């Protein structure tokens, strides 16, 4: 008995060590990346980190809490514009503008979440779909021109590395994105494994049972909406910084839909999955652009055809996405190891 238990403890210790090693190696790779990659590749990987943050926000809402949002591009836009307006019009340093943008988005998400409370899954999808479509028009609205720059958008200066660090702007921005992502991922990881995370999942799986267990569904749902919008807003603020530009037409319906593609492909209710999703939505359009050089202009439509097919196939064959597929694979390997 004791022997068996200590064996199990040893195994647990071993798997914990393996996990720590894996995380350390991954962090080292992330850290070394901008020194081996070209400037443009560094920029692309900054975008991957940013998409991962945005997808994490959406996944908290849709994957864990079961509230469907087809309009997170709008919160991405609010974050980007809030940061840009603070920096350009009010001279706020970017280090402060990013968290303020997150707070603004938390408020926006919380307020949007209030009517959303009364809406069941399908109606929320409808309302957020409308939000995604309306966002670019609102950003172009003449009455806000003085702040938003209207159709032209706003130009931002890409920040230089502080303290005389020997980094290019792209390298510095990459590390800035990582520095923002790390606490956000840490917090989200802790959140979903806590009492609150279990409450979120309970509300998703059976709202009435959750309420009967004493979960304040209304409060949890609106707060999750706010938190999710805050994550996506921080991502939007970072995107504005690394691109050096925000404009209404970069925040259309298809941005919101690509976030949905990202969390579905990566895996609903999975935190590591958002990286798969982020890599996917960053590099598939690039790949299609390169194909369009060979196949002609019309191949530009390709990524969305691929996205659509993948959405339907994933839902049909592997509803838990890439993360779920990996999990199943690991379980199969584990079983085989046990048997051997």
């Amino acid at each position, binding site marked *: 008995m004791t022997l068996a238990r200590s064996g199990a403890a040893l195994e647990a210790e071993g798997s914990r060590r393996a996990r720590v090693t894996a995380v350390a190696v991954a962090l080292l790779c992330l850290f070394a990346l901008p020194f081996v990659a070209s400037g443009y590749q560094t920029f692309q990987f900054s975008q991957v980190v940013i998409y991962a943050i945005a997808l994490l926000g959406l996944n908290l809402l*849709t994957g864990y809490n*079961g509230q*469907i949002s*087809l309009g997170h591009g709008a919160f991405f836009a609010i974050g980007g514009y809030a940061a840009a307006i603070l920096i350009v019009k009010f001279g706020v340093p970017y280090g402060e503008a990013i968290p303020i943008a997150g707070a603004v988005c938390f408020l926006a998400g919380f307020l949007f979440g209030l*009517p959303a409370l*009364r*809406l*069941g*899954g*399908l*109606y929320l*999808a*409808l*309302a957020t*779909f*409308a*939000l995604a*479509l*309306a966002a670019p*028009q*609102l950003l*172009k*609205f*003449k009455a806000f021109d003085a702040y938003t720059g209207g159709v032209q958008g706003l130009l931002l200066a890409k920040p230089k590395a502080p303290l005389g660090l020997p980094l290019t702007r792209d390298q510095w921005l990459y590390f800035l994105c990582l520095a923002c992502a790390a606490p956000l991922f840490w917090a989200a990881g802790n959140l979903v494994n806590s009492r609150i995370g279990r409450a979120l999942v309970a509300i998703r799986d059976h709202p*009435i049972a959750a309420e009967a267990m004493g979960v304040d569904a209304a409060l949890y749902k609106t707060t999750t909406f706010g938190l999710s919008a805050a994550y996506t807003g921080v991502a939007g603020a970072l995107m504005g910084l690394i691109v050096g530009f925000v404009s209404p037409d970069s925040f259309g*319906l*298809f941005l919101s*839909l690509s976030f*949905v593609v990202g969390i*579905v492909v990566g895996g*609903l209710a999975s935190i590591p999955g958002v990286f798969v999703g982020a890599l996917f939505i960053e590099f598939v359009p690039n790949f299609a652009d390169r194909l369009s050089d060979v196949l002609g*202009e*019309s*191949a*530009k*439509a*390709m*990524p*969305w*055809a691929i*996205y*659509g*097919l*993948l*959405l*339907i196939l994933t*839902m*049909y064959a592997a*509803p838990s996405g890439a993360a779920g597929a990996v999990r199943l694979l690991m379980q199969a390997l584990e079983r085989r190891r046990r048997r051997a």
Partner: protein
Amino acid sequence: MFAFAHQVLSGLAMGSVYASFALAIAMIYQSTRLVNFAQGEMAMFSTYLAWAMINAGLPYWVAFSLTVVLSFVLGAAIERLVIRRFDSAPVLTVVIVFIGLLVIINSVAGWLFTYSIKSFDSPFPESARFGGGYMSPHEMGAIGVTLTMLALIYVFFRFTSLGLAMRAVAQNPVSARLVGIRVGRMLAIGWGLAAAVGAVAGMMAAPIIYLDPNMMSGVLLYGFAAALLGGIDNPWGAVIGGFLVGVLENIAGAYLVGSEIKLSVALAIIIGVLVAKPSGLFGRVIVARV
């Protein structure tokens, strides 16, 4: 006063398009409790088919009829091949599948017909012969075509046995199956009908809003707003909602907010209805069962 009447009447013209859309949405909602997010793209694709046929030299009304028939077949095929697989799936899954359909149809249209904006001729004469200048001939014609179509659909559902079977399936699929109605087939026909109605709406809208792969996003949004305003589980309420929303859109555009943020008006209508009266003007209030 003339200007105001003009705004109201031309609002009725786009309203007829929204009414058709709202009807298509409500028809699918009634039988499956689902909202088809790809409805707009399906109509866009049908309109492109009509455009291609007219360009190939077919007379307008021949192309019109062929498009309606083709759309019916395509709509029924989508139900049989794709939607059927997700019969009892959770809402999230089905919404994602609809989004998948939306982006596939959009990109296939972009690939086949390019993203450049095309004009689409109206079948109605250019010169205003009636209406005293309040409405253009196309606006009059669009309203006429829509009303004719609505009358036909009413007759179909009210006076044919197939229509009766479809209403039975929408109301109670289990009992309908017990009396020998082929429920699956009725659902496919419902999807086909919705696609055909959407195609007519697309062809009536195209001369006003021009033809491009993203033409329908605004129309779809107003169609949603119309269906919700009228009551999404009441097709005739949805139709009335369509005309209301069309007039509301024009008046808001002319007197309140300008035309640049028309989509936000739809957003406001959608959220307003959902918050204030989720069952819409003519919908049934549903009490959830635990």
